[in-house]
């Protein structure tokens, strides 16, 4: 086999057994590459299980800064006999299989188009460590040492990362260093290194950070001033709650009393979680919940209450593979329609679509401002890939001059000075957004009765058709106001140059940008737009109008985003070409590019 000399462009996949401590070893590997200034994209492909099942950790290393997933595994580090057969099949011809040769590899696993690199991982671990649990853990560090040497990762960087990892347990540093050196030395003594496919220090990450979207959401909620989170455990959203609590403990303890400036409530189910958020928000605190598709399904009745009674709610939906319990540990953008129109009756909810952890932070804050301003529920639509995987992201930023937009709240003084009676559902300003009062504000003014039943401008129950119409028509009008407040889309060209337009959102962005670049290299230029919000901004409408054919890329089977565009903008469906990926793995540039080429050639034929 001819060695291909490739620098800073490879995919390494670690095949492990879950519950064996491999995740932290793999993360240290990815972090070391990141510390060498090379853009990395780690993806944790894990089972819905705690111990004993196959789990993979895939790291794409790309000097050009492409952050989407890429097909074709260059190096597979196989330490799980259960998945060995498929793991070996998954390696690209000419790739490498790094495996534990403590036992001889069975003949059935020998492919003649790949390279085999045996490291006696468990044997070395058993020789140097007595405790079986430690043998297991250090086996992981042994393969990190071996792989680092094979692809030329700076070992001093790896050691620094290890030292940081065990900062609080410094006794663990020397045995980890020993394990690392066992792997390093075995490679040095037995193989030619580095491989033709390797890494090299560059300066391509700038001030970026390596962080997961859920942590950024949790921090965003803290910076937005959320004081109550109610939630119910569900993959892949749970780590938002963990992050919120973790950072609240650091950032939200009253320095004098030591008491908490937040309430963190694990609810009995998702229904209760959103009920608590509605209650807290009604009572003037910023509150939020996070969940995934099944949780949103359960919350539907309350979502309608929030819409109709006009109570601000921030709901973070970290999507996973549906329907039903679906693929709880795989990613999808499958809750677009069920979020946009959640609940019975005529309902619509604003949605924001972050595509990086930095945007998870920023848009979580925006969600709170929008919810308070519009007095409605606002979704942050994330997904498992964005939420649970580490991403190379711009740093999180907060503008110290920014003031929260708490919307239209009447104080006791405002109520005192009002010449007209207070109407909770009265459109005073002509923007269809009413004013609200917080319970306890004034002894005799501003009280009202919140209800999910039909009500007039003064929150009084009414079954009169004209009263109902005035209210729901105002809500429709409020939706028009929302269009002027939500973030505008991002464009990737100064001016339109093609009759084709590419539309994408959320985590599809990485792969879409890469696909555009790949096509550009082949002389195909397509205009593109990343949608950041629903309702659709006027600029979204304009972009679609200006292109004959619009290619909509998304990660679900039924092209839900395309349906949303058709439904909301009355676009002729024949103008919207759909590209989808819904196998639970993040979409790749290759998948987008080949589908575009296929569809366009059909369209032109």
């Amino acid at each position, binding site marked *: 086999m001819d060695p291909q000399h490739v620098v800073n462009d490879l995919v390494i996949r670690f095949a492990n057994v879950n519950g064996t401590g491999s995740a932290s070893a793999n993360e240290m590997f990815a972090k070391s590459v990141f510390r060498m200034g090379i853009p990395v994209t780690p993806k944790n492909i894990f089972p819905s299980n705690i111990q004993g099942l196959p789990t993979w950790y895939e790291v794409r290393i790309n000097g050009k800064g492409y952050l989407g997933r890429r097909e074709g595994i260059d190096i597979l580090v196989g330490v799980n006999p259960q998945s060995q057969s498929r793991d070996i099949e998954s390696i690209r011809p000419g790739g490498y299989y790094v495996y534990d040769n403590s036992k001889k590899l069975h003949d059935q696993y020998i492919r003649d188009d790949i390279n085999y690199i045996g490291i006696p991982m468990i044997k070395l671990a058993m020789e140097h460590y007595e405790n079986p649990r430690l043998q297991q853990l250090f086996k992981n560090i042994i393969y990190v040492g071996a792989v680092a040497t094979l692809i030329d990762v700076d070992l001093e960087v790896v050691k620094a990362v290890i030292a940081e990892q065990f900062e609080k347990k410094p006794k663990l540093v020397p045995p980890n260093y020993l394990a690392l050196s066992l792997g390093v030395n075995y490679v040095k003594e037995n193989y030619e290194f580095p491989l033709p496919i390797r890494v090299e220090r560059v300066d391509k990450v700038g001030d970026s*950070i390596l962080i997961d979207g859920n942590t950024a959401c949790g921090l965003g909620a803290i910076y937005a001033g959320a004081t109550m989170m109610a939630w119910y455990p569900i993959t892949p959203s749970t780590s938002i709650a963990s992050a919120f609590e973790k950072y609240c403990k650091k950032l939200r303890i009253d320095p004098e009393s030591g008491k908490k*400036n937040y*309430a963190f409530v694990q609810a009995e189910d998702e*229904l209760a979680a959103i*009920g608590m958020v509605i209650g807290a928000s009604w009572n003037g605190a910023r509150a939020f919940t996070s969940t995934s598709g099944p949780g949103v399904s359960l919350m539907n009745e309350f979502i309608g209450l929030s819409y109709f009674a006009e109570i601000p709610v921030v709901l973070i939906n970290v999507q996973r593979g549906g329907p039903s319990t679906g693929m709880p540990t795989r990613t999808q953008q499958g809750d677009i329609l069920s979020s946009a129109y959640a609940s019975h009756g005529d309902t619509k909810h604003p949605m924001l679509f972050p595509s990086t952890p930095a945007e998870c932070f920023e848009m979580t804050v925006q969600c709170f401002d929008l919810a308070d301003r519009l007095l409605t529920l606002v979704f942050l639509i994330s997904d498992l890939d964005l939420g649970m995987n580490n991403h190379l992201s711009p*740093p999180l930023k*907060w503008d110290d001059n920014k003031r929260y937009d708490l919307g239209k709240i009447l104080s006791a003084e405002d109520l005192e000075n009002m010449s007209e009676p207070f109407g909770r559902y009265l459109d005073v300003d002509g923007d269809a957004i009413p004013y609200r009062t917080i319970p*306890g504000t004034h002894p005799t003014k501003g009280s009202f*009765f919140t209800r999910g039943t039909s009500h007039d401008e003064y929150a*009084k129950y009414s079954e009169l058709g004209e009263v109902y119409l005035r209210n729901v028509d105002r809500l429709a009008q409020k939706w028009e106001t929302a269009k002027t407040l939500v973030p505008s889309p991002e464009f990737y060209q100064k001016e339109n140059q093609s009759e084709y337009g590419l539309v994408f959102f959320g985590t599809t962005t990485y792969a879409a940008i890469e696909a555009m670049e790949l096509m550009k290299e082949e002389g195909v230029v397509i205009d593109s737009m990343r949608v950041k919000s629903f309702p659709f901004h006027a600029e979204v409408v304009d972009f679609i109008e200006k292109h004959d054919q619009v290619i909509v890329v998304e990660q679900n089977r039924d092209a839900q985003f395309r349906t949303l565009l058709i439904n909301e903008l009355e676009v002729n469906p024949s103008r919207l070409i759909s590209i989808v990926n819904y196998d639970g793995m993040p979409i790749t540039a290759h998948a987008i590019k080949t589908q575009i080429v296929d569809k366009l050639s059909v369209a032109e034929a």
Partner: protein
Amino acid sequence: MSYVKPKFHHPALKKNKVGYVKADYEGVISTLCAGCGHDSISGAIIQACYEISLEPHKLAKLSGIGCSSKTPTYFLSNSHGFNSVHGRMPSITTGANMANKDLIYLGVSGDGDTASIGMGQFVHAVRRNLNMTYIVMNNGCYGLTKGQDSATADFGSISKSGSENPYQAIDLVGLALELNATFVGRSFSGDKEQLVPMIKAAMSHPGFAFLDVISPCVTFNNNKGSTKSYTHVRAHIEATSLFDFVPKEEEINVQYNEGTSTKVELFDGSEIHLSKLAPNWDPTDRRSAVNRLQDAKSTGNILTGLLYIDPESQDFHSKLDTSDIPLNQLKQEVLCPGNEKLENINSGFR
């Protein structure tokens, strides 16, 4: 349709300590059936709030769905109210309470709203010892949907259509005791003497105060053979005690007989005085309450009165250790950590 009562009243009406007359605690005119037990409970709530000199805007009234859940419009018009969705009042109240620990929370529910669709949220509010008064207006049937048996309908009770209930009843008081609720009482809509002081005590209790109030449905469950009819309840009522609630700083005039009376001091200095009628029962001993409840049940009686109170009750906020200032009053300066801290956090991710 809501009918608004006239606001003006006779100038000679007695004002309470905070300057309100009783009419200031009223709501709009009830649209429930004439004679409905729920209206009597609304009256007791008005009376209790007036007597303890509560400022109406310092209370939030919340409910679920059903006849009972309509009642918050019939009292305390100057309080914010929230008629939420079926069975979910506890979660709304939990959130509201988290946002502002300084208001009094009065939750009103029914037997369908609590013992069926809302059972999950009810038991978890008990578990957290949420600081609220939770009143179930218990009539054993679904009034608003025309009289179906509810989960609190007694085994063997005869419905208006003549059918006998084949299912065991959920006894909400027994359940609340089992779940370690810190204040448990039962009363009867027709017994204002007992109900008014019980509501007052419940509102002073720092934790989950549960009141199961038998409240006959005159339209669908007041027939012969029903165990929730006025006639049946009056004939089978058995009280644990004669009951009085003495707010803080108020002189105690009533004399209680030594040996038969008990005094329970509440955290704010108020007192509950009980002239005990039930033998072998101590209001601060959960086990004795459970036993008394079972004894009454075995004789077909309905035990009313204060059954249990935990004077050491620690509410949900205490468990969470939240700030003394209500969370909804914290400003951006306190809540937002600022960019410098964020820069440090960023460094940890490099």
